């Protein structure tokens, strides 16, 4: 059981380091409270977004926390892919540049798994292969419209 955990931990940690560097332009890694006996403690995320000195996770900004959390989720995914991922407004704290960065990473990960991403942000919508439009007229039911963006046709 410990070997299985160690193998998973090492793999996810490697993934986390490279994904965090790409998303947050900084250094981050996973750290066990007790590396001799992992089950005796917990798992910490050590994050230096943009090369800032280490600080407790709680003092990070909203955007920094989002990118750190998403780096962890993607790190798990690369180790044990699920067939689909459903994200609901995970970009709500991100500034425009970071939405762009996140959407490029999702494009990349979407080669291996299906991504269904609810978003109101333009860089995310523009990076997707297609958009499903959802509306609800007053007093009526939700209506769903498929909008296929012909990516190859536009600039």
């Amino acid at each position: 059981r410990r070997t299985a955990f160690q193998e998973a931990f090492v793999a996810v940690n490697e993934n986390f380091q490279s994904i965090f560097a790409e998303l947050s332009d900084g250094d981050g890694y996973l750290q066990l409270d007790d590396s001799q006996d992992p089950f005796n403690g917990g798992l910490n995320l050590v994050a230096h977004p943009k090369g800032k000195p280490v600080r407790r996770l709680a003092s990070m900004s909203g955007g920094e926390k989002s990118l750190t959390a998403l780096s962890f989720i993607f790190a798990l995914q690369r180790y044990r892919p699920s067939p689909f991922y459903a994200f609901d407004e995970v970009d709500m704290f991100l500034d425009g540049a970071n939405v762009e960065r996140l959407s490029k990473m999702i494009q990349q990960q979407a080669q291996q798994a299906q991504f269904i991403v609810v978003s109101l942000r333009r860089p995310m919508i523009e990076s997707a292969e297609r958009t499903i439009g959802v509306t609800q007229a007053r007093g009526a039911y939700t209506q769903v419209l498929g909008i296929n963006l012909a990516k190859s046709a536009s600039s």
Partner: protein
Amino acid sequence: MHVKRVELSNFKSFGGTTDVPLLPGFTVISGPNGSGKSNILDSLLFCLGLASSKGMRAERLPDLVNQNQAKRRTTAETIVTATFDISDIDPELLRDEANDPPAQVDGSGDGCADRSCKFGVQNGHSHLNGNRQNGQLSSQNGQNGQSGHLAQDWRVTRRLRVTPQGTYTSNYYINGEPCTLNQLHEQLQRFRIYPEGYNVVLQGDVTSIISMNARERREIIDELA
């Protein structure tokens, strides 16, 4: 493997039966506030039994039934069916304890037109005929009871019925056959879909990984190992 479509009948803000087709790769869902985007994700969680009612922003399961017809005097129901394209997965993963060998899961030909429909005739068959093939459920998969062929589709359905008094029943089906929630979860696990999995991140939850305690975070890795 990916979700090909989700069909929602009477689920939350969706009245009637709505077909949401999905493709592999990167799809965005967008639209105005309150239009029903998050409800689509709730319908997936509902169908696959992956969340409690509170995890779908409902105080109790009956709140999930579309409530536009307020004072009804008959039993109301909501049905959600998720269809997966499994043409690229290892047939070994389709082991079904109840019905070996694997390919039987899809091929028994127990379509709803053959016997009294499990979904209740009063709904008509529009819900199950999303593919416009009357009653031939398993023919969607290109084979009718012939073992040894690769199955194309894998379908999960959940139906919730609520009486006027407010009591309710919930039933699960795999490819039209009744199953228990445990059986569904076992099969989902083989496909790497878990209730505590991080493949679904709901609105407002993305930073929960940061605020959870260290032990809970380590247990996420335990689960995957």
